């Protein structure tokens, strides 16, 4: 029986130090220094083309970079490269490929080729992995028939099958509706707490990041900010990142008026002056 503390200690954190990536002479990432704390949920935020996915690709050692990537254990010591889990943006499986979900989940565990079938042991393992992500109904489905949200779950099940210490998630390419997205984040949060891993994910979904993340990294080619969501995803940081006013936390709007003309959120003054009084005046 593991206690909560044991589970939390399983996660391995990452520290990026002065990480730069240059591709065909173009600077993609410029001296990024950021970290994903042990056992936490770190979300990388930034506009399109900001190098978010490239940062993940550095972690996966898929692209060349200068600088360092260090792994950190729970007690702050340097750790060796941990078992990594990875959820990619998409799979190159066209709808015609008759690949079944259980076959996909057995692909790496199975010693025999799939054309000789899956062993009962691996069928059981696939079922258990699907139960972890609440998708046991999908076992016999064709991969090509899954919805975007279902595919995410299956990919997550596959990644969890490696018992990762560090789980890297790229953003889903195919659209997942808001409800599906919310349920997926809930699932990620639950698995992280129960299985114990450090989560590092790329996302465009600011409200969900604000709700679930323990740490956010804001990049736009260079480092913009990092820290706890509430103190990091401020109106000014988001304006710098995306170039438009976005007010995740209404009381952080820097527009001095009672109601921000740009977004309709309550302004700074209104909120701080009348923190629990009449705010419509």
């Amino acid at each position, binding site marked *: 029986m593991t206690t909560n503390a044991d589970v939390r200690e399983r996660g391995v954190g990452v520290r990026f130090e002065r990480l730069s990536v240059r591709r065909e002479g173009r600077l993609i990432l410029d001296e990024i220094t950021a970290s994903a704390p042990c056992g936490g949920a770190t979300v990388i935020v930034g506009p399109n083309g900001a190098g978010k996915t490239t940062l993940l690709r550095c972690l996966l050692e898929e692209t060349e970079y200068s600088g360092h990537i260090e792994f950190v254990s729970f007690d702050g010591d340097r750790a060796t490269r941990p078992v990594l889990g*990875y959820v*990619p943006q998409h799979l190159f499986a066209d709808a015609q*490929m008759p690949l079944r979900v259980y076959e996909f989940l057995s692909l790496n565990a199975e010693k025999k080729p799939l054309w000789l079938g899956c062993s009962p042991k691996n069928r059981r393992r696939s079922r258990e992995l699907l139960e972890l992500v609440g998708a046991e109904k999908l076992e016999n489905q064709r991969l090509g028939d899954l919805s975007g949200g279902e595919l995410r779950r299956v990919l997550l099940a596959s990644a969890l099958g490696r018992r990762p210490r560090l789980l890297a998630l790229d953003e889903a390419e195919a659209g997942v509706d808001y409800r599906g997205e919310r349920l997926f984040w809930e699932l990620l949060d639950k698995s992280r707490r129960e299985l114990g891993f450090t989560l590092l994910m790329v996302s465009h979904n600011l409200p969900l990041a604000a709700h679930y993340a323990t740490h956010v990294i804001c990049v736009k080619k260079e480092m913009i900010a990092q820290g706890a969501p509430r103190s990091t995803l401020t109106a000014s940081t988001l304006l710098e990142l995306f170039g438009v006013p976005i007010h995740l936390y209404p009381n952080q709007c820097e527009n001095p008026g009672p109601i921000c003309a740009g977004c309709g959120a309550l302004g700074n003054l209104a909120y701080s002056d009348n923190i629990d009084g009449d705010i419509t005046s």
Partner: protein
Amino acid sequence: MDFSGVYALLGLLPFDTLEPRFMRQALLGLLFLSPMTAMLGIHVLNFRMAFFSDAGGHSAFAGLAIGLILGAPPQTAVLVFGVVIGLGIMAAQRKSGLSPDAAIGIVFSAVVAFGLAVVSRAPSLARDIQQYLYGDILTVTESELTILALLLVALCLFEFWGWNRLLAVALSPSLARIEGRSAGLWQYLFAAILALVVMFSVRAVGVLLVTAMLVVPASAGRKLAWSMRGLFWWSIAVSVSSSVIGLMLSAQEWMATASGATIILVSCLWFAASCLWAAFKRSRN
């Protein structure tokens, strides 16, 4: 390798068309070749590289030309050059990570043009060109049969050890790497075997139809099969049966058609039937 025992065995089949020895040789060649094209065709579709086999097949002309220039036997030159081109295309595909259509298109036009230019200077080779364009399994030699048999054994071993690996890479190269399934060696081996099999398929059905030999059985298999396991066996069944039925039909007096074209026609009928079957299954759901 001595195949006389196998010929005797094939002679026991109740078909008059198998009376002449060259027919039995041709049948044996197809029994070796068709399961290989089926197995490889599955990967070809997974990696979306149907164009690869086309390019490989066309490079037969350049192989012929180089053999002519170097004074090497044309058969050998064609095989060696095919493998070189195959490995080159695989390297380009792995490196760019992009759809290599344009690159292959340019390279293979250059290769074909070069081949035709050189060969057109030597009228004596005109007959060989014919053979490569339309294929002729009826003239398969004993030494070619030996190579085909060895290739079949090699491919079976490859499919046993490398199948899951190749599928993982086709689905997501990044994911495969994370899983410790980086497959560089296997991809190159695949490209080499594919190139060799393509060259033999050129012998059987000709440059014009070589892609069909790979793509049609696997496509029919995709319609018929319930799983990847089923896909493997269905593709082989479609490929082998098309080859045998096609060869037999082409030798009938009332048909008297080219064997390569007949084989492909039969497999295309299989594909049409599989589409109907898939539509029927969908309508019942």
